[in-house]
């Protein structure tokens, strides 16, 4: 339900403003609304203006902002550790923290920079090493000639390798040898051996063909290949050791200081939020005024708190919510017990306006019934109850899964009830094996009664929606609009009755006079609603017909269940039959959960709620501490 809100005005001496804001911040039950200030009436000569901070307050705010930025930067650099938040009160030690944060920031920045360099070097060395190690076995194929110059290259693909081989043989008149292998990361790499005299020309050819040569630190370039690999190993180990040392140092620093800085940052966030909150306060020469919203049942408590804290200097006054305020009133929804899980469905819609209705209880009442009407099978209902019980056992805390479990449980109960009424147990299996008979009607055969039943449900649901729509207009103090909605309601009833009279003629139900009644109402509706009124009437009739989906989807579900039973029976083997039938029933159950959910929700969102729900409300977002 939508919680009743109160519009309140808090007035006090200017010097108590920050303390008052702090108290409101701590309580977390008040949402300021500066727009309300536009309608404040003042005594003659008084002028209302936004609060201007004095020099000291501005200096303090600037200091805290700077401090917040530095602490944030430091925390971003320090590695994440789960060691909570310090209980330290930051304000008395803020001066010390101001000095320390600069030192820590400079040290940490240096260490992080060096660590990043080390990691980059180690990655490069690791890559070089993997390439050269892969090339090492290729050396065994080469003659032991000290005049040979060796090149390592990375090659795009085997086609490029072939082209490169042809080119190099041509450039060196066949005095070149190329072999290839695949590195650990999958890169194709090649080893080119040639005479020292050919090396420069070959290098030029590689450049012109855009074949990258494997890089190597300068000091290693002149070493023979086996020694290169050993040297690369040594360098890699040195870099990794350095990285480890730096990481340990940063981790120590983080363990020691992160809880303190996190606490300081939380405090700074709160303090600066307080300064930002001053923008919502207005002042006169001597006083401040804050207007806003809070839950009606909390007003007395806040009134007492303010009285106690400021000895009556700060006053809270509850004001009447005017008609022009109605669209501005923030909305807070609270649904206890049975209805609470259904909030996950109403949350899919935007918030209703304050003068409208919370859709949650209505979904809670009608969704499971529509679900049960569509699925309506004792077997499926029992399986869903087991599933709901499993979810409830495994998710005792209130989570999305536990909410889904509760909704599933309630919907499954209605599925059981309608299953008994339709006499269905896994389709027609109950009738065949257990001699089950429908209490009401067999919906697999009684198509027309099921259509009539679905339409009747639609008529009741839509008429209820239209009645709620008229009541909404009355709550918004719009009697004229309420009367128009009632006229539309009467027109729909007359249309429905005339259609009933047409299809099922009764002596007491004459279609002609009913249509004349609609004809009389139509000019009134056109005068009030414009030329769209007849279309609205037709749309409402379409909305009612839309409820036939209750029958249509249920019909497809029972036919699929019957197909599952027939196919299972046709196999001639009990095990294969159970497997085939079980698989099809599992598929049908999956569809049977998904389709009724989507279609029941759609009937609510499109057909039912469009008749009365006024969406677009503002969420109630009180000031409150982000950090306890």
């Amino acid at each position, binding site marked *: 339900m939508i919680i009743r809100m109160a519009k309140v005005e808090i007035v006090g001496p200017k010097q108590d403003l920050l303390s008052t804001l702090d108290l409101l911040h701590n309580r977390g039950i008040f949402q300021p609304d500066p727009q309300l200030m536009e309608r404040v009436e003042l005594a003659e000569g008084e002028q209302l203006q936004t609060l201007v901070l004095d020099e000291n307050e501005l200096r303090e705010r600037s200091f805290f902002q700077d401090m917040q930025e530095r602490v944030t930067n430091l925390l971003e650099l320090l590695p994440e550790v789960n060691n909570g938040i310090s209980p330290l009160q930051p304000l008395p030690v803020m001066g010390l923290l101001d000095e320390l944060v600069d030192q820590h920031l400079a040290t940490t920045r240096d260490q992080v920079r060096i660590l990043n360099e080390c990691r980059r070097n180690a990655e490069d060395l690791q890559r070089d090493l993997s390439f050269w190690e892969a090339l090492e076995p290729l050396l065994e194929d080469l003659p032991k000639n000290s005049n040979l110059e060796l090149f390592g290259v990375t090659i795009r693909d085997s086609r490029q390798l072939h082209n490169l081989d042809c080119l190099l043989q041509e450039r060196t008149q066949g005095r070149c040898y190329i072999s290839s292998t695949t590195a650990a990361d999958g890169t194709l790499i090649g080893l080119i051996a040639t005479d020292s005299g050919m090396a420069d020309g070959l290098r030029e050819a590689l450049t012109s063909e855009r074949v990258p040569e494997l890089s190597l630190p300068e000091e290693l370039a002149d070493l023979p290949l086996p020694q290169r690999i050993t040297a690369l190993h040594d360098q890699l180990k040195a870099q990794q050791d350095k990285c480890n040392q730096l990481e340990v140092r940063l981790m120590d620093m983080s363990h020691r200081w992160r809880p303190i800085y996190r606490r300081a940052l939380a405090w700074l966030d709160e303090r600066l939020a307080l300064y930002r909150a001053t923008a919502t306060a207005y002042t006169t020469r001597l006083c401040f005024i804050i207007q806003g919203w809070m839950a009606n049942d909390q007003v007395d408590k806040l009134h007492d708190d303010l009285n106690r804290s400021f000895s009556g200097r700060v006053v809270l006054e509850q004001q009447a919510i005017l008609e022009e305020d109605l669209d501005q009133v923030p909305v807070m929804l609270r649904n206890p017990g049975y209805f609470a899980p259904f909030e996950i469905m109403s949350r899919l819609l935007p918030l209703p306006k304050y003068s409208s209705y919370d859709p949650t209880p209505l979904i809670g009442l009608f969704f499971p019934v529509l679900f049960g009407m569509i699925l309506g099978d004792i077997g499926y209902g029992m399986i869903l109850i087991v599933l709901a019980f499993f979810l409830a056992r495994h998710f005792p805390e209130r989570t999305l899964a536990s909410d889904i479990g509760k909704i599933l449980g309630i919907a499954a109960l209605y599925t059981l009830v309608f299953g008994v009424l339709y006499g269905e147990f896994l389709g027609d299996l109950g009738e065949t094996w257990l001699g089950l008979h429908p209490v009401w009607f067999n919906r697999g055969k009684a198509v027309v009664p099921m259509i009539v039943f679905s339409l009747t449900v639609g008529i009741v649901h839509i008429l209820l929606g239209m009645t709620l729509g008229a009541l909404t207009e009355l709550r918004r103090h719009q009697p004229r609009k309420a009367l128009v909605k009632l006229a539309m309601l009467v027109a729909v009833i007359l249309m429905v009755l005339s259609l009933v009279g047409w299809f099922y003629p009764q002596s007491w139900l004459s279609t002609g006079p009913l249509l004349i009644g609609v004809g009389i109402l139509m000019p009134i509706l056109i005068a009030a609603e414009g030329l769209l009124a007849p279309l609205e009437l037709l749309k409402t009739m379409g909305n009612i*017909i839309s409820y*036939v989906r209750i029958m*249509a989807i249920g019909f497809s579900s029972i036919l699929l269940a019957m197909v599952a039973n027939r196919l299972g029976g046709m196999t001639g083997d009990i095990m294969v039959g159970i497997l085939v039938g079980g698989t099809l029933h599992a598929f049908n159950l999956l569809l049977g959960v998904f389709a009724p959910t989507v*279609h029941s929700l*759609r009937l609510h*969102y*499109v057909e039912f709620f469009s008749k009365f729900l006024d969406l677009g409300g503002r969420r109630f977002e009180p000031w409150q501490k982000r950090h306890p």
Partner: protein
Amino acid sequence: MEKVLIAFAAALAVGLPALATAWAQSRIGAAGAGTLAEKPELTGAIIILVAIPETMVILGFVVAAMILLML
């Protein structure tokens, strides 16, 4: 022959709206998936939009049922 024509008429009454619904849902669904990637809070609105064209096939089903049961 008359029975064949009646059955054919019923099949057309439900088949054509089914095709129309499928086409509409494919367009709405694709656009909805794109919207959800940027604004997940519009899930409810997207479900409604995707489910709206289904009314066509439901009405087609009603007409088909009326053809089969009343003729």
